[in-house]
């Protein structure tokens, strides 16, 4: 077990200083100002101004703490050397949790759909089947290209790795843009998440998937920027690419259930 070795031979046992970091606390506080406060102020208390004010506090705080966290990790100052090696061990468990978010939404979708007297419910416009096919091809290709990138990295070909990584990022971005185009197109045709239960399910499920695409792309960019400066963490690449394959697999469920069924 590689992780085991890293864990016990990575650094001296027993430090003499308490490990401290400012960023977890700051990040947690910023979350309050980025999510619940603006949401409640805008949607519950109908005060756009206060919502923007909360975001004005939250977003800079979030950015500062994320940047601080990442740079602390890169610098390796007060980092437990263990962290680097165990990331790949932890990602599968994180993905299990992620998978069950989709399972929850899909189960809800199946339940309402199987109990519905007719499907699709009234008010649903025609949804193009060409777009999801194109999106599937793009996303599967990006899964293949990130695999190529990893292979280049295995052979210590960093420039080849960077090229394939950029191709993957472009494919992912195109996927997201098509998704956004489809959303705006459907909304333009009067189909929104409040039209009927299909609209609610469609936009939530594809929206949650798109948000995962964004997270994956952010991860790739976090790999790309240090890579351009010549530092690549193989473990981190592995973690992000496993996550990306997961986003790809979930898409099969989304496309087969929400579009083609």
């Amino acid at each position, binding site marked *: 077990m590689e992780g085991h070795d890293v864990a016990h031979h990575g650094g001296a*046992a027993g430090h003499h200083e*308490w490990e401290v970091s400012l960023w977890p606390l700051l990040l947690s506080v910023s979350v309050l100002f980025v999510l619940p406060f603006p949401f409640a102020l805008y949607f*519950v208390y109908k005060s756009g101004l206060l919502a923007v004010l909360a975001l004005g506090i939250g977003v800079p705080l979030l950015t500062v703490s994320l940047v601080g966290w990442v740079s602390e990790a890169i610098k390796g100052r007060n980092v437990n050397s263990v962290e680097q090696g165990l990331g790949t061990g932890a990602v599968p468990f994180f993905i299990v949790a992620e998978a*069950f978010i989709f399972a*929850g939404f899909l189960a809800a979708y199946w339940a309402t759909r199987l109990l519905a007297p007719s499907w699709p*419910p009234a008010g649903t416009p025609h949804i193009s089947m060409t777009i999801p096919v194109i999106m599937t091809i793009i996303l599967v290709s990006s899964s293949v290209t990130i695999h190529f990138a990893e292979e280049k990295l295995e052979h210590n070909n960093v420039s080849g790795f960077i090229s394939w990584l950029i191709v993957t990022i472009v494919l992912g971005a195109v996927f997201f843009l098509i998704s956004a185009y489809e959303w705006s197109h459907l909304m333009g045709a009067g189909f929104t998440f409040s039209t009927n239960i299909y609209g609610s399910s469609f936009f939530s499920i594809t929206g949650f998937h798109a948000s995962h695409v964004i997270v994956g792309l952010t991860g790739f960019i976090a790999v790309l920027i240090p890579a351009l400066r010549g530092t690549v963490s193989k473990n981190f690449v592995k973690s992000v690419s496993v996550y990306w394959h997961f986003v790809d697999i979930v898409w099969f469920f989304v496309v087969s259930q929400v579009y083609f069924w």
Partner: protein
Amino acid sequence: MSAPAQAGFGKVLKEWIFTCDHKRVGILYLIGSLAAFLVAGLMAMLIRVELSSVGPTLTANPGTYNVWLYFHGAAMILGFQIPALTGFLANYLIPLQIGAKDVAFPRLNALSLWLFWMGIVLALLTFVIPDPPDFMWTAYPPYSIISSGNTAFYTFTVLIMGFASIAGGVNLITTIIYMRAPGMTWSKLNMFVWCTFAAFIVQLIFVPVLGTAVTMLTFDKYLGTTFFSPGSGGDVLLYQNLFWFYSHPAVYVILLPFLGIVFDVVATFARNRVFNYKAAVYGAIAVALMSGEVWIHHLYASGMPDWIRIGMMISTILISVPVGVMMISLVGTLYRGAIDFKSPMLWALGCMFLFLIGGLTGIPNAMSAIDLHIHDTHFVVAHFHYVMAVAGTFAVMAGVTYLFPKMFGKMCNEGISKLGFVVTFIGANVTFFSMFFVGLQGMPRRYFDYQQFPQFQGLNQLITVGAFIMALGFLIVLISWIHALVAGKKAVDNPWGSRSLEWTTSTPPGPGNWAEVPDCTNFDPYGYGSNK
């Protein structure tokens, strides 16, 4: 605490607030969860005073009563029990019990801690905002959607605490798998480690589904989706299913760690190996695996075909088999042990007793034919308070009293501790045993008044008296801890004579726990006397 003598107050404060150390994170979890416990306990007292007489007692406004119910349930479960067991105890104990210098991701651990605290802050805003949530911690639609209560704050409290749970779970699962000391094989792990491991698996699978349920709820209320509105093709019962798909397994997230700590305390004070260790471990894993197949019993009265009721009755009763195996192991650990009735042991034995009553009264609840009659009565309230609420709290008390010397280097006064236990134990039983009777007589739960049923007043007064006794007991416990912190005797490294690994560190343990990674080749956490 054990910072170098020359360290100033500012440095100590910084080392606590910005800490990434698992022990300090654990203690800060404990402080947060005790804060939630106190405020939620206060709500319980308000509820009890309100119900102590027919007619409006404290308030004539059912909405106010609903807010108390909401805060009591949400804060006790999400703010106290789950964080105290999977936050405080797991964080403090697991690295020490497996011989690791910290958790796998110390900063992520600090993030979990502070997100949990932000959840507490959000929950406490209930008392500040003009539209506090008033729909219990279950937040069933359609009421939670049409109510003027703030569903958004409820949703975000759940989401933030849920994320903290998931991050904590990933962290500790990784720790247990990859960071065990050399020689610490899976078959040498403490029962607490095994049980918590199983609980974290349950959390990873089920918390996200609660996340989707409450997200849909808030989308429905504020963004106009129609998941739970039948008029547009949605389904109200869908929410109940998604909610209980998490919230029944949440019971096992509480149960498994609390049985785990009770195992360790009982083995230590009975000076005995865990009886049938392997079966108990398989029991814990089986509970985790089966936790997802019982949730529909919460919906017996909500309406479903009979064949589902029967299937769910069988599957619900089935899960009591592995739980029973674990109980037998616990009792077997006492058998022929040299039992020492120190205060942690009393709490652990109290927990076993309360859990047994709660478990046995769960059987009639599981039988759909009986449950249809006692559903939403105080019988159910008494059942889940026995099996989860007070049993879990007793286990937390056992854990805190057990670890107190290790955490703070001070011994609790045995006399005050035992007094606290006895008073709490009497109070808990007076309260919740009476509740069974008033429930069987038909007193519905969640009602703020019972003018139509004045015959329930006598028992309700008894329950209220019990609640005050219980509150007094917890107050004595709190005093015993403060007394110990201020004037407690200095603790040695292993005051209880335990064989477990956490007692081999210095007291309190410094950064990194051990100077050298311990060698566990010949280690046995339960190797007492002739069992070695």
